[in-house]
């Protein structure tokens, strides 16, 4: 079973996305901060990490920078999941981190599962 790590500071988001993914046949783990996510990714390789960009203390962007800088985790598949509409500049910054996708919240339940299946 493919395993996905969801990273978001909002518990509601974590719970609802976890539910959607489990319904779609994935195993879903959660982290409510970038710091916790990095600890989990250091210990285990996930088929996909869904990373919120805007989180307190450490952003998802910075977390992925660190993932890419770590030889052990640099190939971890990451998709950004966020409510933020990025500027052109922002898109260029994010692209450099080599995400496999950029998904805007709120997610459409019907399409979300399909989209994740295509990424893992």
């Amino acid at each position, binding site marked *: 079973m493919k395993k996905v790590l969801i990273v978001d500071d909002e518990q509601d988001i974590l719970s609802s996305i976890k539910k959607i993914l489990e319904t779609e046949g994935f195993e879903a783990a959660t982290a409510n901060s970038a710091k916790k996510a990095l600890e989990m990714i250091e210990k285990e390789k996930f088929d996909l990490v869904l990373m919120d*960009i805007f989180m307190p203390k450490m952003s998802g962007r910075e977390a992925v920078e660190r993932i890419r800088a770590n030889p052990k985790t640099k190939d971890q598949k990451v998709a950004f999941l966020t409510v*933020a509409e990025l500027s052109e500049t922002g898109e260029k910054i994010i692209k450099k981190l080599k995400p496999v996708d950029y998904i805007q919240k709120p997610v459409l339940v019907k399409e979300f599962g399909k989209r994740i299946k295509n990424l893992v």
Partner: protein
Amino acid sequence: MNLVKEVEENQNIVLVLNESEYKGSIIKLNQKLSKVVGSICYVSITTQVKSLAETFTNEGISIENYKFVGCSKKHGEEPVTADSRFIAAPTALTELAIEVSKAIKDETELLFLDSVSSLAVHNDEFKTIKFLHHLITLTKGTNTRGLYIILKSDFEKGLMKELALFADKIIEYASLE
């Protein structure tokens, strides 16, 4: 780099100032902008609006086209122009968003936020970033441009770097003509 041209070409700009040049830069920026921008909503987080308006007038800046939004209603500050508005405190972000929305609805040409750094003193970083994102989203699809002032020392640390993700351009004041 020409400020007016940059404002024309980029809807939302974060302008990074050195702390030492802050006061002088604010005056110079407004000396330029007041001559070419038809309407400016000037949000002053810390400086009292009355003091700001006096300084501007003394420096030859016409405040005719300015709508000031001050953050000291609690302290009973008096409006300097008919258009002045006040919110309760720099932490009253919902109120501030409402005032900015009104300004945008009134087709204000430029939203000038002085400053992101001051906002972050009164609200935590995360809240400040989210609020900035909200303001920038409010301007989308409208003709209102946004100029958001931040001190270099604040921009280079913590979450403030993330402003680069949703602002159209980050400009260092020193690079302006």
